[in-house]
């Protein structure tokens, strides 16, 4: 039970940190051209979205109820 | 465009000049060669071998159906037709059209020295023979018997052979996925300077569309096969209704690949026809852009129609309508192709070489196959036809009368380029005629058998169908015999076929600008392309092409670019 609380809080903090770093990385090579950079941008963006999802899951906004 | 003028300045492409040294030693040269031509020859030989085996299996089917009670025991019969179908689709036609023709012709036509990833090419080929052997070996363990579609749940109860079938097809799937990736990169990145997309030969367009399909669709099949294998071997419930799975799920996943697979099999044949017809009617292909784009359109639409194989399987009725309508839409780009080919014949100077005869036969049989396809697309009609011999007739019209006729045309067309020797024209023409007649006598009656109530995949059938089945069987023996004619022709050309020279047909695409068989590096110097191919009136649109002496002079004097070396 309290293990779950620990996991949640770690995930919460982690989500913020990782999300921020991911967005920064995204912002940095936003103007970079080339197939590799564009693919990276797409993937990083999706990963940032993943962080947002984890964030909301951790604060219990989304996820199965009950 | 009347005169060939450079509309784009050819950029130097050092990577095109990059060459890996010719291997010495038999193994590296002929067994594990990375030369796309050698690999193409390997595909030709292997797929040809499987073609013979699968053909013999087909004759076993027809022998069984000589009597309405069946000749073989039902178990054997079911295994025979299932392996026949699987082999013809995955081990014969697909390797032939993309592995063999794609590998040999496509790099030559875009002026490349090899494909983008030669080692990948080598790896892709060497997944192919083992797959075939595994499938054949499955006979020892109880071969798959539920048809080439292997619908669960019955395929879950079949003996171990079906798991071997999964493995074999999975290998083939990986092989064609890798080939697809390889070809796409090759076509995108390795075209000769100045060869814009609209200057690519139409076979290259077809290869590109096919490669795309291979790359995307085949992994879906891999997933379906993996799930089937896991369920068979470890009881993981995906398809078994008694454990909560869904048999229909397999049908969705299987057909999501296997309908595009139909286009994987037919698009390269389209490409071959689009090369053969201009050459032998000495005319530019009619409506180049329409033909090229229709290939892409067909490839894209091909992904949205898979469920038309499942109209009777039990899906939401309203879903039937979109699938029916999109399926019917495919008739439009296909029709455009057919009409453009007809218009290419018009006003030509048509030379009835075997390749041309097969191309003409293709137009007729494939049109019929398309018409019956329309019968099957219309849901209410399909409710009567589904699972009958009408379907069997239809698929043989599109796969035999389509793909195989295209393969024959391509073989006669590129044989001189591949071997450096001519085949026997007369014998080839006989082959074309015999094949055409025997083919139609074999597969046309199947449509009526089906409509009158003969279901497919049966070892025995109602007695009233016996007469027509015997007709079909006898004609199929002639069809099989006709295959011997081209084999004999090949042997003949090896023994006493006369030297072909670089360009025996007076064709205008790049592969004919170099000696036959092509040298290891294909092009001594990679040429620059100034205009579209097929403009027979104009000088050849290639510069900097330092080919073998006497091959071609691209001078205004030579009207066709045709010069008889020797």
């Amino acid at each position, binding site marked *: 039970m309290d293990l779950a609380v620990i996991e949640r809080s770690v995930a919460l903090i982690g989500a913020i940190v990782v999300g921020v770093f991911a967005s920064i990385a995204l912002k940095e090579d936003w103007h970079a051209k080339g197939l590799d950079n564009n693919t990276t941008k797409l993937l990083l963006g999706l990963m940032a979205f993943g962080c947002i999802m984890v964030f909301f899951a951790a604060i219990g906004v989304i996820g199965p109820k009950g | 465009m009347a005169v060939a003028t450079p509309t784009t300045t050819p950029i130097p492409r050092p990577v095109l000049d990059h060459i890996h040294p010719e291997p010495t030693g038999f193994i590296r040269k002929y067994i594990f060669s990375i030369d796309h031509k050698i690999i193409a020859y390997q595909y030709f030989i292997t797929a040809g071998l499987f073609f013979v085996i699968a053909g013999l299996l087909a004759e076993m089917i027809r022998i069984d159906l000589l009597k309405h009670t069946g000749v073989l025991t039902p178990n054997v019969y079911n295994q025979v037709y299932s392996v026949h179908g699987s082999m013809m689709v995955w081990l014969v036609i697909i390797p032939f059209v993309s592995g063999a023709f794609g590998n040999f012709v496509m790099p030559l036509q875009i002026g490349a020295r090899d494909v983008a990833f030669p080692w990948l090419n080598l790896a892709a080929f060497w997944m192919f023979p083992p797959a075939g052997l595994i499938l054949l070996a499955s006979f020892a363990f109880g071969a798959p018997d539920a048809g080439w579609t292997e619908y669960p749940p019955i395929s879950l109860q079949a003996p171990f052979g079906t798991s071997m079938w999964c493995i074999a097809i999975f290998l083939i799937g990986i092989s064609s996925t890798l080939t697809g990736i390889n070809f796409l990169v090759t076509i995108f990145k390795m075209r000769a300077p100045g060869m814009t997309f609209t200057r690519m030969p139409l076979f290259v367009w077809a290869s590109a569309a096919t490669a795309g399909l291979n790359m995307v669709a085949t992994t879906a099949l891999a997933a379906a096969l993996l799930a089937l294998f896991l369920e068979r071997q470890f009881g993981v419930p995906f398809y078994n209704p008694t454990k909560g799975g869904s048999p*229909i799920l397999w049908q969705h996943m299987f057909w999501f690949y296997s309908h595009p697979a139909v286009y994987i099999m037919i698009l390269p044949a389209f490409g071959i026809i689009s090369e053969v017809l201009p050459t032998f009617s000495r005319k530019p292909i009619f409506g180049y852009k329409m033909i090229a784009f229709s290939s892409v359109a067909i490839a894209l639409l091909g992904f949205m129609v898979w469920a038309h194989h499942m109209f009777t399987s039990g899906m939401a009725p309203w879903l039937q309508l979109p699938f029916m309508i999109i399926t019917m839409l495919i008739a*439009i780009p296909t029709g455009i192709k057919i009409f453009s080919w007809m218009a290419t014949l018009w*006003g*030509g100077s*048509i030379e009835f070489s075997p390749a041309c005869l097969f191309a003409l036969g293709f137009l007729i049989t494939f049109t019929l196959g398309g018409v019956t396809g329309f019968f099957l697309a*219309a849901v209410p009609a399909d409710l009567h036809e589904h699972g009958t011999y009408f379907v069997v007739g239809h698929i043989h019209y599109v796969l035999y009368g389509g793909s195989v006729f295209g393969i024959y045309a391509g073989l006669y067309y590129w044989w001189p380029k591949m071997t450096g020797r001519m085949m026997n024209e007369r014998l080839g023409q006989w082959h074309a005629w015999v094949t055409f007649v025997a083919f139609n006598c074999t597969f046309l009656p199947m449509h009526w058998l089906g409509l009158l109530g003969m279901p497919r995949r*049966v070892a025995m059938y109602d007695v009233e169908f016996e007469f027509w089945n015997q007709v079909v069987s006898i004609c199929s023996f002639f069809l099989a015999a006709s295959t011997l004619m081209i084999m004999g022709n090949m042997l003949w050309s090896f023994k006493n076929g006369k030297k072909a020279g670089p360009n025996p047909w007076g064709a205008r695409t790049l592969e004919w600008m170099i000696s036959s068989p092509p040298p290891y590096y294909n092009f001594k110097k990679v040429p620059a392309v100034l205009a579209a191919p097929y403009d027979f009136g104009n000088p050849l649109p290639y510069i900097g092409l330092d080919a073998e002496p006497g091959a071609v002079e691209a001078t205004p004097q030579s*009207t*066709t670019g045709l010069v008889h070396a020797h």
Partner: protein
Amino acid sequence: MAHQVAKTKVSLGPGFWLVTAGILIASAIMSYFVYASGWPIGLPQIAEPAPEIDSLFKFLGAVGGTIFNIVTGYIIYFAIVFRRKKSDPPDAIGVQVHDNPVLEFWWTVIPTVLVVILAIFSTVIWSSLQNTAGDVLTMEAIGHQYYFSFRYPKLANPVNNEMHVPVNVPVTLHVTSAEPGEPPVDHGFWVPEVRLKADMVPGLINTLRFTPTQIGGPYRIICTEFCGALHGTMRATFYIDSQKDFDKWFAKQGGTGGAASGGAAGASSGIALAGGTAAAGATLFAAKCSACHATDAFSDKKVGPGLGKIFADPGHPKLVDSSAPTPDDAALIMKKGFTGDIGQMPDATTNQISDGDIANLVAYLVSLSKK
């Protein structure tokens, strides 16, 4: 131009229009025969919607045949007229024409129009197959290795390998495969003379709707999905009887008053329903039944159907003699359990309800239907 020997004809070719006329006339004649004859199927049309489906076949045949004639005709014509003659020099070339926008426009538009017409026609026929009108006789066909069995309402046991339906009675046929205990395999149900087919997939119920119009038989019922070694031998016979003959046959099969649609075990439940009280039933229903059954219309399915108006519910499938289910039918189902096209329900022992409970529940259901 450099190529002195190029064919420079402006005409479409000798006798082009003659050939065109020939192709069109041939197509017209062919289409006429398609409609005049039984082409392409020629089997009797023993039930709705066979005639509609055949009309689609004929239309497709006429259109497709015409397209085929046009393609084949012109190809042969071009091949003959534009062949390379012995006299032509080796580097003779054809007319150097690349495209013709007008032509290409038309041969894109005309097929598109044709496709649209065909799609509309097919859709119209398709929708006629979807109609749920009538729904008088609701029955089941079940595929086994290697025979068919047919469940009739009010018939205790399924009938094997013989399907009788009364003429002019709309039939709703639910097909499935593999009852519990059998190895699950696909089968197919096809009566060519009816032109309808449905796969019999284990764990899935597909539905065919048709109205027999011609007394006759036997016709073939054919399995059209591979179902094992003897798939080819899997047949049953199909008869369309007059209502009287059908009733006679039905009686011979042991059809009597009793169970509800879908065919649970026959006869009477033998439970004294008089003593039941609706109030006790209500509490029992909440405890035992409400998990699977709603108390509103029959069509409102939870796991089982809604039972609110079961004794006065238009949504409830009618029986062969179009009589509604009786309280005793309900009691019987609670006692014996139920297996049928609308689902399954365990029997009284599994549900742990006594005969008295059943009596109370029935009383409750009756009270619901009265509301």
